[in-house]
């Protein structure tokens, strides 16, 4: 199964409530995916600041003095905000790559969840309610966000197997479904220089889109290409620094409901996920068409 929720805000006055709204939607989708949960939140870029979200199975060991060690390595100030098993490291934007490679030497066991100037990703195994509480998702602010509750069918229930997957700067993807040609596509993408952390099919879809974006294609064109090159069942929700997109495979057996008002665009695997949104009674509610790309950019 799996559950997906997404929220793209048009009304800035809702931005302080993004995390609270998204967390509520995520918990509603618990019975579609009780194995693990995750969210990507776009909290808005700040001039000159880049962010790396990292995860550790042993945060007491890995995060101790990590800011100071990274400061020594790159010679620039580093701000670290710890959240349970995750930490967000803020570095000057031009030092993102240097910081990323330094992390590999300084803390080899640490996993990188996301890199960019707006995105932060938090994901763990466990019930959506517990995962949301662990990272205090309901207190987060932002412009748009995507959440996922996982019922694993394809690879192991691990932190790294949870969604969202991020394979490019400020990019993320969540998936309901399963891909059948992911091994072949992964091999092709590896030849093109993309790297992979897991054997998961969804990570291949994320990297497929990141690779297209890196080649200069638009988000719409990259999502359109999934319809010809990826085989299997999918409803994808994709996030970029400024955008939010949805695409379903031509068979479209994985459920999807969308709602739009003047204040937001929302996605839910089921209508249940949308019932608490403000003004939902008067929203335009529809089921996205099969093999059709929808995206919104600010």
């Amino acid at each position, binding site marked *: 199964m799996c559950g997906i929720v997404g929220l793209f805000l048009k009304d800035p006055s809702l931005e302080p409530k993004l995390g609270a709204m998204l967390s509520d939607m995520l918990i509603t989708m618990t019975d579609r995916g009780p194995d693990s949960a995750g969210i990507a939140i776009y909290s808005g870029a700040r001039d000159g600041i880049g962010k790396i979200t990292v995860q550790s199975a042993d945060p007491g060991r890995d995060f101790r003095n990590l800011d100071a060690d990274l400061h020594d390595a790159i010679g620039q100030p580093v701000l670290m905000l710890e959240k349970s098993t995750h930490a967000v490291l803020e570095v000057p934007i031009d030092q993102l790559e240097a910081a990323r490679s330094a992390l590999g030497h300084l803390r080899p066991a640490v996993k990188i969840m996301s890199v960019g100037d707006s995105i932060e990703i938090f994901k763990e195994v466990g019930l959506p309610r517990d995962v949301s509480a662990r990272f205090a998702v309901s207190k987060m602010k932002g412009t748009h966000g995507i959440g996922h509750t996982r019922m694993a069918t394809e690879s192991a229930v691990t932190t790294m197997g949870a969604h969202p997957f991020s394979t490019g700067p400020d990019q993320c993807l969540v998936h309901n479904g399963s891909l059948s040609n992911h091994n072949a596509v992964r091999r092709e993408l590896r030849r093109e220089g993309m790297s992979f952390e897991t054997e998961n099919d969804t990570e291949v879809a994320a990297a497929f889109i990141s690779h297209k974006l890196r080649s200069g294609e638009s988000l719409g064109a990259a999502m359109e290409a999934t319809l010809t090159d990826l085989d299997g069942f999918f409803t994808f929700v994709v996030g970029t620094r400024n955008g939010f997109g949805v695409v379903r495979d031509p068979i479209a*057996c994985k459920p999807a409901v969308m709602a739009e008002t003047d204040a937001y665009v929302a996605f839910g695997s089921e209508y249940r996920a949308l019932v608490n949104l403000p003004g939902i009674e008067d929203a335009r*509610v*529809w089921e996205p068409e099969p093999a059709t790309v929808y995206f919104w950019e600010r």
Partner: protein
Amino acid sequence: MQTFDLEAQGLRALNAALHALKGQTNMTAWEVVNPRGAHAIAAGVDALVDVTVRGSTGYYCAGMNKLATIRVKGSAGPGVAENMMSGTVIIDGDASQYAGATGRGGLLVIKGNASSRCGISMKGIDIVVHGSIGHMSAFMAQSGNLVVLGDAGDALGDSLYEARIFVRGRVKSLGADCIEKEMRDEHYAALEDLLRRGEADAKARPEEFRRYGSARKLYTFNIDNASSY
């Protein structure tokens, strides 16, 4: 009128109360408030009652319905009226995928659009959709009628048996072994009745529809081809 607050009282209590009505003749009018997209609302009812759901529903609303009239004042999630046996289900908004799947009898009316696989494997149910339907609708449909005032998506009536399909708008494509057939007097009469019962007689006239059915090439054993089987 019995009013049931689904959020306060819960789904099992609702369905237990509705199931307990079998054979009774009192408490025939029910209203369900705060459905909030919940699954299996009023599934398995087997009594001559009238149930109005005030809002949108999740999976399998009115599934297996017998005798009851169930109205949804909102949209319905996947599998509404799945395997309905008899009675009437009326959706004011849209219906998600596989509405009326495997239905054996009764009438399903969708006043908005229905998405993919509407009437898949229908076995005697009548379905009237005021809007349009998605791809693979009436796949392997065996009997009953599917009436669509709007358009139909790809592969309409694929691998069809003996169900009748009437579409007023455009059909994107016909599935394997589904063909257009002539409208004869009996079809106009049947359609007139379906439009009236489907609360669509003010919106459309039988003469505006085309009929589609099985070419009977796919499922019928043909003695002339015995050597190639």
